[in-house]
Every structure is written in C-alpha cells, then in structure tokens.
C-alpha cells in the first residue's frame, strides 16, 4: 500500500501535467472560436511551465532565498549547502516566460479585436466564408 502511495506521489503530478497539456492542445486544434484557441494556448503554456518548475523542486528544501542574510552584510558564516535550497534556475527561465506570455497574449487580443473590426466575427468557419466571398 505504501509503495502504491509513494508511486502516486512520485508520478501523479506528471500525469496531471500531461492531462493539462492535452486539454490545451485539444482546445487549440478543435475549438472554433479564436479566443478559445488563445485560452487553449495559455493552458498549454502553463502546463509546460508547471513541468519546468516541478523539475526544480526538492524535498525538505527551503525557498531559494538565503536565510539569515537580511542584515544587509550577508556572508553569514555558515556554509551554504546546495541540497537545502530549491533549484533557482527553472524559476528564472519561467518567470520571464510568464511576463512574455502576457505581453504576447495582449498582442493576440489586439489581433482578435482587429479581425472583429474587419469581419464582424470571431468564428473560424464564418471567417473562412467571409474570405471566400470576396
């Protein structure tokens, strides 16, 4: 029983990330509305970011800010062990990814507004119809 539980704890996260990614991919492929596709894209993105951040997680470690350094002068005698702190590298990569994702989300929304101004619709099949009329 404990083996099954430990297996679930060890791998359940990855399964759920894959499911989340599948939801996003399905929305990108099969949904008809442009904004729904954008939401699918964002869900896909967060699934990947989750995967990256979870790689850096370590059991029984604390957050990647050095403890006891708030006096400003730092270098608090004791040596720093790498096993005590969570890996900061994936956090850095994903932090910038989130901000860039919101900026690109804004650009995509601007494109959607522009498309709606011109064709008065956001559905993909209606857009195809309007385009073929001309």
């Amino acid at each position: 029983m404990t083996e099954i539980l430990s297996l679930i704890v060890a791998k359940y996260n990855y399964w759920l990330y894959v499911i989340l990614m599948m939801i996003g991919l399905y929305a990108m492929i099969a949904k008809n509305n442009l904004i729904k596709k954008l939401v699918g894209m964002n869900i896909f993105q967060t699934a990947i970011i989750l995967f990256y951040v979870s790689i850096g997680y370590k059991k029984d470690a604390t957050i990647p800010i050095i403890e006891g350094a708030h006096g400003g002068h730092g270098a608090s005698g004791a040596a720093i062990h790498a096993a005590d702190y969570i890996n900061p590298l994936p956090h850095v990569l994903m932090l910038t990814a989130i901000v860039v994702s919101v900026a690109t989300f804004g650009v995509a929304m601007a494109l959607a507004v522009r498309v709606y101004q011109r064709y008065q619709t956001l559905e993909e099949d209606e857009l195809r119809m309007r385009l073929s009329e001309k």
Partner: protein
Amino acid sequence: MHWQIDLIVLTFVIFCAIAAISVKDLLATAILFGAYSFMMCLLWAVMGAVDVAFTEASVGAGVSTVFFVAAVFRTSRRTKD
C-alpha cells in the same frame, strides 16, 4: 513535504481548465481563467517558487483578466462551442 495541498489544488486546476474551454460564453471564460490563475499561483507557492508565484499573482489576477475582459468588451461574447 506538502504534497497533500499540491495534489488537491492540481486536481482543481484540471476542473477549471476543462470548464474554461467548454463554457459557451466568453466572459465566463475570462472569469474562469482568473480562477485558474489563482490556483496556479497557489501551486507555485507550494512548490517553493516564490518569485514565479509573485509574477503569476500580479499578472494573472490583475493584468491578464483585464486584457481578456477588454477584448471581450470590444468584440462579442458569442461563441458556438
């Protein structure tokens, strides 16, 4: 250490994602997407990624929802699927 909270919140995130892409109203999608990012921030805080959680808190709660609602305001709420 805190894997219980992690698993519970991760399950909620899946529900939220399914609802956000299957609801037939774009404003409701925007609001559900806000809830999605709340839980995502919680998940990152559990995993110890404090800076990422902060970014998601400021971006997901404030700006991303605002852009979404603004775009829905300027286009239409209608969606077929």
